[in-house]
């Protein structure tokens, strides 16, 4: 019997997540007394020091919130600026921004699948440990990660904090021969991306059946990335500007990241949420590759997130290949911006999920207030809910080591970015 057993599990530094966080778990008399995903990275207070900065600086400044998804921050910011200023950047910019974003999805998802998640499913402490027994898998993953970075570099000159994007478009357009050379590499990688989906689906993923709310953007034609309305699996369908009417953030004592709720309930953002709400928008080859795995989306198994990430790599490759076909350098790479005062809203799908921005600008185009809601703070409540369910399903009478491993696997499955989550900490107090 386990009724008198007490388990105190403290994982002071979570391995293989972006940024640093910890987990506290206390099990007493066969039930969970305490379960805390503790995020203790110090706040960087971005929202405060964005005040007074000009709109033209925002893409470079907000990128610094996250080294893994800087493109997402840049794209949500330019959308907010352009929406308010009434700028239409035109079809070339729209297409190239999607390509740019595809690069980030590919590199971030390949990084997560191979460096962070795969060791859990294959029984290693790190990807370095997998290098011998799973050399082919790791090489394929690193090559995809490198391709994602190459796409970002094509338009942004470097993959971390790229310098190419601006309000209105891009500073410069890549030469056609560079585009053609990269596009050929993307085409050549398609079999790897398809194989990655099959491989992800073949991993020993634990069974799990949970009732949760998925939230993502949805676009009339495309799989969501750079634009759309915010939708939820239980029926919400709102424009980006109405986010604050339905979603609220709260502070908890043990975390420097705020928790977000939808109508008082935790919810999921990220690849699985996107797949659950937008599988009908996938390119046919991705749908076919998924059909061969037998996994059906929408899925209530959180561990299908890794399959969703692999599918999004394939989707992003196909998308970039299509958008770069027949590439021509445009006469102008950016539309002119004329500042206007008011409030602008932006939301895009970062690799980890919905990334929502709101800026109030003065008539010179300087920020008066900023609010940024990153994906990881939105997922925090859902992660704790999942952890409870997953550990109870595993059996609280299991060895501490088994509980720790499963708990870490559950957390990593969300690909939490603690750097993002804390680097935002937003303004939730009432202001005069």
């Amino acid at each position, binding site marked *: 019997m386990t009724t008198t057993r007490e388990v105190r599990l403290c994982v002071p*530094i*979570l*391995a*293989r*997540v972006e*940024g*640093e966080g910890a987990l506290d778990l206390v099990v007493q008399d066969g039930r969970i007394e305490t379960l805390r995903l503790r995020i203790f*990275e*110090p*706040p*960087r*207070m*971005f*929202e*405060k*020091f964005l005040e007074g*900065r*000009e709109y033209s*600086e925002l893409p*470079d*400044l907000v990128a*610094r919130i*996250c*080294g*893994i998804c*800087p493109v997402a921050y840049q794209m949500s910011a330019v959308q907010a600026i352009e929406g308010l200023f009434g700028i239409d950047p035109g079809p070339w910019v729209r297409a190239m921004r999607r390509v740019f974003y595809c690069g980030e999805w590919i*590199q971030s998802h390949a*990084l997560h699948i191979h*460096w*962070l998640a795969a060791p859990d499913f294959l029984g290693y*402490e*790190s*990807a*370095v*440990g997998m290098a011998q027994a799973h050399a082919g898998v*790791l090489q394929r993953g*690193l090559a995809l*990660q*490198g391709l994602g*970075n190459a796409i970002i570099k094509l338009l942004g*000159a*470097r*993959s*971390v*904090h790229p*310098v*190419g994007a*601006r309000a209105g478009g891009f*500073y*410069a357009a890549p030469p056609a021969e560079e585009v053609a050379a990269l596009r050929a590499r993307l085409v050549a990688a398609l079999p790897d991306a398809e194989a990655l989906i099959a491989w992800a689906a073949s991993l020993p993923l634990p069974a799990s059946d949970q009732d949760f709310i998925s939230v993502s953007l949805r676009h009339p034609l495309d799989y969501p990335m750079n634009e759309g309305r915010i939708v939820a699996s239980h029926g919400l369908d709102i424009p980006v500007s109405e986010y604050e009417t339905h979603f609220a953030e709260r*502070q908890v*004592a043990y975390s*420097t990241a705020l928790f977000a709720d939808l109508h008082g309930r935790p919810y999921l953002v990220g690849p699985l949420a996107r797949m659950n709400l937008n599988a009908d928008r996938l390119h046919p080859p991705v749908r076919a590759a998924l059909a061969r795995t037998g996994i059906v989306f929408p899925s209530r198994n959180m561990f299908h997130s890794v399959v969703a990430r692999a599918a999004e790599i394939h989707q992003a490759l196909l998308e970039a290949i299509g958008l770069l076909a027949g590439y021509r350098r445009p006469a102008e790479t950016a539309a002119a911006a004329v500042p206007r005062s008011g409030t602008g809203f932006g939301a895009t799908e970062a690799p980890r999920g919905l990334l929502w921005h709101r800026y109030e600008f003065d008539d010179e185009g300087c920020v008066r207030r900023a609010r940024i809601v990153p994906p990881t703070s939105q997922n925090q409540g859902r992660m704790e809910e999942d952890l409870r369910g997953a550990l109870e399903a595993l059996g609280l009478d299991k060895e501490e080591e088994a509980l720790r491993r499963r708990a870490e696997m559950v957390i990593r499955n969300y690909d939490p*970015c603690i*750097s993002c989550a804390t*680097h935002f*900490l937003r*303004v*939730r*107090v009432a202001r005069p």
Partner: protein
Amino acid sequence: MDTRLRVAVHKFSSCDGCQLAFLNSGADLLRLMPRVEFVHFAEAGFIAPDAPVDVAFVEGSISTPQDVERIERVRANSRYLVAIGACATAGGLQALRNDADAAAWMAAVYPRPAEIGALPVSSAIASHVPVDEEVWGCPVNEWQLLHVLQARIFGVRPAIENDKVCLECKRRQAVCVLVAQGAPCMGPVTHTGCGALCPRVRRACYACYGPAENPNAQALAARFAQLGLAPAAIARRFLSINNAAPVFHEAGIVWRERHDDHA
């Protein structure tokens, strides 16, 4: 006997983008594994924060009382300590709070600020412990970090570039955006290492690699004024990614005060 270089990667307040250079090194990183042992590198799955190492790479700025204690332990356990990136070398973008009322900011961001526990300033690693090498850049790149690792494998000091971005533009035959476009380019005062990326996409450098050797920041600021930049805009050019680097901070404050005098 294991003769591999024992390496740790530590994170303080940062965006994670500098240590990502290791994970973005791909096959090159795996090729180094016979020579390098990662002892602590949480994101890659290695956890031993207090183990002794030959080289510690430190990303991020010091911004909490716990950070102050932790960086002292890192220093004590490391034969060679390398601060990487703008946060570790200059306090980072988040050092913008150093000139502000940090308590008021915390109260604005958190409903219960007392539970957060942050220092009023964000500071560079070298403000707290002796640092053997600084690699500037926001972000640092793969070649910089692999170069430091290679040098330490051979037990020598890494050769860090010290030129200004201007020289890199000349080497790469990039058209000068300051001269040709009248763009407020920070290249003349900025440390190279990035490859002059911004001028090569026809935009002004924004100094993410920090101050170069002997920069004449005030002269460049005066040139920006001649180009028509308002004092507040000049101040923002300097008070950005590397705002707490002394030479940038000084120039930025001078021009911010000129703005305040006119306001």
